[in-house]
């Protein structure tokens, strides 16, 4: 079943928490050093959106984030001679981005405090979905339980429109939540890699991931409920 496969690939990977450069990474770096424009274009298309999302954790506007990302790509090209493969190519690119973003944020002297990006303390699910905590028989249990999406036709779940709603829900998140879910779930980074890059604790990272995933799930539930038979 394709849906089984879809979910299986979401299970945590057993590979190294801090991957080093793969043979493919070294091939790309060699091609860039040789001036291969198509390889550069492909790399830009692959990572640009996620780079912008990470930049938005540090700078306030999308326009500034896009500038930071442009500067990052130039920085990547200029730093190519120094790439030794001790980290993966993508980690290396994102570290350059993080450094550029922090520098820019300091210059702007208007960087947004981390706490204000975290998105508050909203519960994962609307409390109205549950019975009251003082309910005599079933305190805190579902009043309107969610329905399994397994009942939906697979084409529905795999359709482009569903993916577009997922993307829209991610882009609607507060900056820090958006960054963490982007790196963990969209890009597939490990928890350690994300904590290293963003210089946050595992606990902090988990809270952000939890809030982000909860909101995206809710948005998808609203969308899919509207389409269920």
């Amino acid at each position: 079943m394709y849906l089984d496969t879809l979910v299986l690939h979401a299970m945590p990977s057993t590979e190294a928490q801090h991957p080093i450069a793969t043979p493919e990474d070294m091939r790309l770096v060699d091609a860039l050093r040789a001036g291969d424009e198509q390889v550069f274009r492909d790399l830009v298309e692959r990572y640009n959106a996620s780079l912008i999302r990470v930049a938005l954790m540090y700078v306030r506007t999308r326009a500034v984030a896009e500038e930071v990302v442009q500067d990052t790509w130039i920085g990547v090209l200029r730093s190519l001679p120094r790439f030794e493969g001790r980290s993966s190519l993508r980690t290396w690119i994102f570290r350059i981005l993080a450094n550029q973003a922090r520098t820019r944020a300091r210059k702007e002297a208007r960087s947004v405090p981390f706490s204000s990006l975290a998105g508050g303390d909203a519960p994962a699910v609307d409390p109205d979905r549950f019975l009251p905590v003082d309910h005599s028989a079933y305190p805190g249990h579902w009043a309107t339980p969610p329905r399994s999406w397994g009942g939906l036709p697979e084409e529905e779940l795999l359709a482009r429109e569903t993916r577009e709603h997922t993307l829209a829900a991610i882009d609607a998140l507060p900056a820090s939540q958006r960054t963490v879910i982007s790196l963990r779930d969209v890009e597939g980074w490990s928890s350690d890699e994300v904590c290293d890059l963003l210089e946050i604790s595992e606990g902090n990272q988990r809270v952000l991931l939890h809030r982000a995933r909860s909101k995206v799930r809710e948005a998808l539930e609203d969308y899919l409920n509207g389409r269920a038979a």
Partner: protein
Amino acid sequence: MIAYTFTGPGARRPFRGDRWPPPGEWAAAGRGSRVDHLPVWIATELWLVELEGSVHEVATQLRADRGRLVRRIDAWDDAAAGEFARWCGRRILELSRAADGDERLNAFRADAETFAAAADANVAGWVATRAAAAADGEDGAARERARQTGWLQERLHLDPVPRV
């Protein structure tokens, strides 16, 4: 060691979103339970499972580094699960007669009448346990679970210590 394990349809592992491989093939994170804790884990299919590697018990669950299905216990099917659900429903009515007027028991009694199908088996067992707790405290709840285990052992002809 050999233990019992419940799964979803097609040997789906209940909380992991994947399936057990075919019987005999090892999988990581073996899970099961002793016969005493069967009612807690009731699901669609019942299997014998072999657990290996740091086997230890945590509350009602046996945990090991790996496990493999041995064979399915066919006696546990939709019919048996439906019977169990309805039996638990009757237990809830008996328990709530014994301690009338308790608000919780009124709610449980209302639900008891809905427990009819195989899919209700686990929750029916749980509600019966909660009804027993409302009537007789946590000791009552433990006795109710033991009663449920007895029902399953008898109906399915289960060995207390499962043999291959």
